[in-house]
Each structure stands twice: as structure tokens, then as C-alpha cells.
């Protein structure tokens, strides 16, 4: 059974249709690329699936259960986690506390259990200095913390919204390895939104391409990147 399925999922912002009748599914252990030009609706789509926005129409199913209108905190308990394109660190908490929150509220662990779970996750991601304020972190560390926070939910489906943005090539390589390891070890379904096509090529087994809220192509990266509709979406129509 697919982990996550959407059927004809749509979201309109007073006239502007940001996501238009999007149907797709995600399987256990797969890394799925979600690409498309700016404004294609990638982030809106993740907002819909994670419950930050409610859809105008359509349906979302998680492991066969209808979650179309479930509140975000319930979805996080069920096993859907995500990071944000615009980072959202909790400034008045330490790095460790930022990560602990998911363990406490999504997994119902007590503070002591959550602390050791968070420490283990951060060790795995090679993130240290856990007593620091988030304002003292480098960009790579913030991105790692965002991923650590998502992992603390112990998700089955994870969306990474441009976690490579702002990283240099060494850091990007490090991050790619980390995402691959996580997906493999935890049998997670990972959705990756990324603008750097090299990352998508290296990381994903399958790609969906959005343009103006519609799904215009689906398949392995090599195949999709040669699709004329995709090239048109990225480069504009023939002059």
C-alpha cells in the first residue's frame, strides 16, 4: 500500500489556483523529487500534505486513512514530517530543545526519553553544541537542526523543502549522503523539493514536475528532463 496518496488535490487562493487537481502517490523507502519553476506550487503542495493549509478540494490519504482535513499536529503524530524552505527555528529554545519537541509532542515521550532521542538524532546528523541558542548556528547547522526536528517526529513520510539551498558543494554532498542514509535505514518515503538539478539527479529515483499547480510530468529524472513540456516550463515556450 502506498504511504501517501493525493487525489485531485487543489488549492485556490481567491482566484489563483496554486495547486490544480494533483494526484500522486509515495511509496515506502523511495526518494521522490518534486521540481518545477518558481511559483509552480511545490511548497503549497507540501503545506497541504502537512496540514499547514487546507485544500479547496480533493483528498489526501496516509496509509489508507483519509487525512484531508486533519489538523497539522495530528498528521505529525501519524507520521508526516517536513522542513521549511524559510527556516523556522524556535529562537528561545536551545538546539536540543528544538529537536526534543517532536519527540515529546508527536511521539509522546517524556522529557528524559525525548532528550536522549534528540541527542541520538543529532549525533547521527553530526550536529553538536546542542546547548547553544539557535542564533549561534551556521546555515549548515540550521539546516541540520531542521532535519533533526523533522526526524524527531519519527516520520514515515518526510518532505525536505529546499534543504540544500544556501549550502556550498561540500556541504551539499554531505547532505545528500545524509538524506540517502536516512531514507534507506528508516525505510522512509522522502519527498525532496530542490532547484539544483544535480541534487535531484543524484538523490531521487522518481521525479514529479509541477507547473502552475499542475502535474505535467512524472518518471525518472533522466526521462523527465528530456520531456518537451518540462523544458518548455523551465525555458519558456518556443519563440
Amino acid at each position, binding site marked *: 500500500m502506498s504511504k501517501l496518496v493525493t487525489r485531485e488535490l487543489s488549492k485556490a487562493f481567491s482566484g489563483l489556483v496554486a495547486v490544480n487537481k494533483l494526484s500522486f502517490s509515495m511509496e515506502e523507502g523511495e526518494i521522490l523529487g518534486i521540481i518545477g519553476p518558481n511559483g509552480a506550487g511545490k511548497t503549497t503542495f507540501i503545506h497541504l500534505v502537512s496540514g499547514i493549509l487546507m485544500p479547496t478540494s480533493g483528498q489526501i490519504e496516509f496509509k489508507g486513512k483519509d487525512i484531508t482535513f486533519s489538523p497539522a499536529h495530528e498528521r505529525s503524530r501519524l507520521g508526516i514530517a517536513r522542513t521549511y524552505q524559510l527556516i*523556522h527555528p524556535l529562537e528561545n529554545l536551545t538546539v536540543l530543545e528544538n529537536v526534543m*519537541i517532536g519527540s515529546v509532542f*508527536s511521539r509522546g515521550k517524556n522529557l528524559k526519553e525525548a532528550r536522549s532521542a534528540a541527542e541520538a538524532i543529532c549525533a547521527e546528523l553530526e550536529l553538536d553544541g546542542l546547548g547553544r541558542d539557535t542564533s549561534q548556528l551556521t546555515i549548515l547547522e540550521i539546516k541540520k537542526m531542521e532535519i533533526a526536528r523533522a526526524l524527531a517526529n519519527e516520520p514515515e513520510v518526510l518532505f525536505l523543502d529546499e534543504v540544500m539551498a544556501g549550502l556550498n558543494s561540500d556541504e551539499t554532498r554531505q547532505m545528500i549522503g545524509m538524506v540517502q542514509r536516512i531514507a534507506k535505514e528508516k525505510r522512509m518515503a522522502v519527498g525532496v523539493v530542490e532547484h539544483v538539478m544535480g541534487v535531484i539527479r543524484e538523490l531521487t529515483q522518481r521525479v514529479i514536475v509541477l507547473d502552475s499547480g499542475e502535474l505535467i510530468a512524472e518518471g525518472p529524472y533522466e526521462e523527465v528532463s528530456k520531456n518537451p513540456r518540462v523544458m518548455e516550463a523551465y525555458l519558456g515556450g518556443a519563440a
Partner: protein
Amino acid sequence: MKLKASWLAAALLAVAAIILPAFLGAYPLNVARSIMTYMALAVSWDMLLRSGQISFGIAGLFGLGSYASALAVLRAGMSPAASIVFAVLFAGLVAFGLGFAILRLRAMYFSITTLALMEIFRIIMHNLHDFSGGPEGVVLPAILFNGEAKALYWICLAGLFVTIAASVYFEKSKLHLALTAIRNDEISARTSGVNIFKYLLIAFVATSMLQGLMGAIQVQSYGFTMPDTAFDANFTLLPLAMALLGGIHSTIGPMAGAVLLGVAAEWLKLKIPYGHLVVYGLIIILVILFMPKGLYGLAKDKFKKSHDNRVKGKLS
């Protein structure tokens, strides 16, 4: 080690507060009671503030507690002790009901609505002549402990201890994570599984019960109340000023602010009647402009800086 030292200091302070009446006469004990009441209100206000919600409704729930307790004695024949328990539960129940409406509001809209609450409660008590005594208020048949100053001090101190214990629990338990997350970033909190409405409701109901408790103790200690006394705006403004001066988002900050401002106000009252209100206003303005973290925040930053410097010194 550090934790143990701070618990020891807290225990010593608590013992000192308990044995204080042995050394003080009735007048200073009255002043102490007033300061403790404001202190409890300041701490309770801060507890909700940790979730980012600025309430101006302290006086409303304080007054509600006063009236619930007084009317439980007068109209239902409860004993004073039972009436205090009743007032706490009643304030909690009202807050629970109201919470479903007002905890969906944020920022300015939340603050203004809580301010309106105070006025609504006051007007209701003002106008329910037969039940609440109207503008003249109500007089209880007897004062708690026959008005014995030491006993009244201790019951007020007990109310304060309950408030401080609740506040420390808020700081040490998972409520700390939930409320801070809500204050910092609600979207991020939701994604980490925090049920925002649930935790705001817990904080709102708990702090309302504490404010109701202090109101009930107050009315049982004085033996009378009226709308303009029970819902006096000072019960909102002074705790706010105290918490801001002492340092918000902590238990110790509002407590320190209450001692400083409370003592200063007593002294100023003698020197320039009503002058203390001007001083309060000035303090709020100056603190917001130059010391937004309050005294406790300032001390913490200083300590941290010297600690960081020491660490740096060791490394280089």
C-alpha cells in the same frame, strides 16, 4: 550542583517568608500581603505570556474570584474555606468556556478582548443588584481568622506558594517546550505535533484559576468588596509593570519586580500621594525602551557574557 544551590536558596527564602510575621507588626504585614497578592498576579500573568499571549484580563479574573467567593458565602452559605475552593473552580470554568472563543484571537485582538472581559464582569456585578449587591458591593458576615494579621499573611502566602509552584512546573515540564514553541513560531510548533489550542487553553485556565484564587483570598481577608475594588484596573496594570521590570518569561523576574515596585510604591504613597502611579508609568516606559528583558534578563545576559569570556579565555 547549580540546580541544588538554587533549590536551597528557594527553600531558605520560603522559610524566611513563613517566619516573617514573628518580626513584623500588623501594618507591615498588610503591606506584605498586598505585595504578595500583586506578586502572584504578576507571576500568573507571565505564565500565559510565555505562550506569547498578552492578557489584560488579570483584574477581571481576580474580581471574578472575589465575587465568586463572597457570593458563595452569602448566597449559598458556604464556609470561607470552601468558598475559596469554589472561586478557583469557578474562575477555571469561566476561563475554559471563554477560552474557546478568545484563544482563537492573537496579538492585539486577544489583549483587547481580555481587557473588555474585565469591564464586562464589572458591569454585570454593578447591575445585578439583588444578587451581587450592585455598586455598593457586598459585606461578608465575618472576616477570615477574625482578621488576625498573621493568619491572613499566611493564607496569602499559601496562595503565592501555589502560584510559584505552578509557575516552576510550567518552566520545568513539557509545558515549557509547548508554550515557548507557540510563542516563537506556531507553524513550526504544529509541525512538531504541538496542539496549540490545547496548550493555550491549559495555560489560560491555570492562570485564571490562580488569579481567581488570589481574588478569593483577598475578599475573605477584607470582608467586603465592590465592583470598583474587585475589578480595579490596578490589578492588571501593577502586575504587568512588576513583571516587565523584573524580567518576563521567568518565575523569578516578576517576583523581584513585585518586591521592588511594591516597596517603592508604599514609600512613595507616604511621600507623594498618588505619585506612585506616575512612577509606575515612568518605569513601564523606561523598561520597555532601555531594558526590554527586565532586571532578570539583564543579569542573565551579563552572567552569560562573563561565562562566555571565561570559556574563551580557557580556549585561547
